């Protein structure tokens, strides 16, 4: 639920990057942090293990300027993708306004993507949120691996696996190289802002 402060004229929106472990959620935020440094007023916060796996979340607040006289800040979060961290994953979803689902296109990750999406649905249910009625963008990440001969799942198949019911906007991306990271971000921001428009007067 977006926080709208009528006194300070601020809106804070929470967008969570969700998906299986090692899918590239943190890499998305690292790229955004580098590319939009001037719009970001603080350091990125990363709670991670010694081997750079997300332990709790990454956090990056991002100013998008004024809308209807309100200063809008987007708070970007990632969840920890490893299976064992579901309890913490669920905590990060609290108050979420929009979701980027980062799927890993590698063939060997195909089932992990599906399991992760199913668990997202269940985790949202604990907050009485419905995956089908909140803004979601799909990202098929690590598409660059195709050219290095790694077996990948074609996007058509991923669309069937993950997006046949949801019908969310989807992007092929390479978070490592920055490919389609910005379009993914812009899409989820515009969808999320549209969903809260009527709360701003």
């Amino acid at each position, binding site marked *: *639920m977006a*926080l*709208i*402060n*009528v006194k300070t004229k601020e809106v804070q929106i929470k967008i969570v990057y969700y998906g299986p472990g090692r899918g590239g959620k943190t890499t998305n935020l690292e790229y955004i942090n580098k590319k939009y440094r001037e719009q970001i007023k*603080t350091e990125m916060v990363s709670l991670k293990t010694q081997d750079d796996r997300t332990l709790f979340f990454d*956090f990056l607040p991002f100013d998008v300027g004024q809308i209807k006289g309100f200063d809008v800040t987007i708070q970007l979060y990632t969840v920890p993708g490893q299976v064992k961290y579901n*309890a913490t994953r669920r905590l990060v979803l609290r*108050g979420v306004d929009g979701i980027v689902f980062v799927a890993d296109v590698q063939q060997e990750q195909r089932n992990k993507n599906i399991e992760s999406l199913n668990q997202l649905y269940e985790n949202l249910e604990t907050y009485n949120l419905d995956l089908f009625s909140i803004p979601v963008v799909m990202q098929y990440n690590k598409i660059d691996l195709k050219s290095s001969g790694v077996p990948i799942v074609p996007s058509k198949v991923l669309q069937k696996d993950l997006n046949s019911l949801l019908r969310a906007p989807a992007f092929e991306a390479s978070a490592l190289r920055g490919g389609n990271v910005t379009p993914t971000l812009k899409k989820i921001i515009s969808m999320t802002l549209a969903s809260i428009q009527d709360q701003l007067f």
Partner: protein
Amino acid sequence: MLNQSQLDAIDQLIIDNLIQSGLDHVIFMDMAGNTIAKHDNGQNKLDSTAFAALAAGNFAAVDAMAKLVGESEFSLLFHKGEKSSIHFSKVNEENLLISMFNKDISLGLVRLKVAQTIEQIDKILTGDKS
């Protein structure tokens, strides 16, 4: 969503009860990590955006641990440092009050002032004018 007069009243309470009593920083926020009101004594700098995100995470983690051991909640959440300490209080299901203070002020006084403030904030939020 809180209205202007509620926000004004909360600001005033935090300043009068807490900042005037010698606390360094006070953040009133929601459980998702969004800051609703923040005040400080004008002397110490704090990255309050990141702080609020971490505080919400910390509170949520401890709250989840409480449930696992069969407690409905741990009522006192307190981190003590050499120079400054942090006190967490749950205002209601949606809101937290975080207070930071230095060694010149006792935990007892902080707890008392925070408890009074929370009670008054709760009245503002529920629209109880008594």
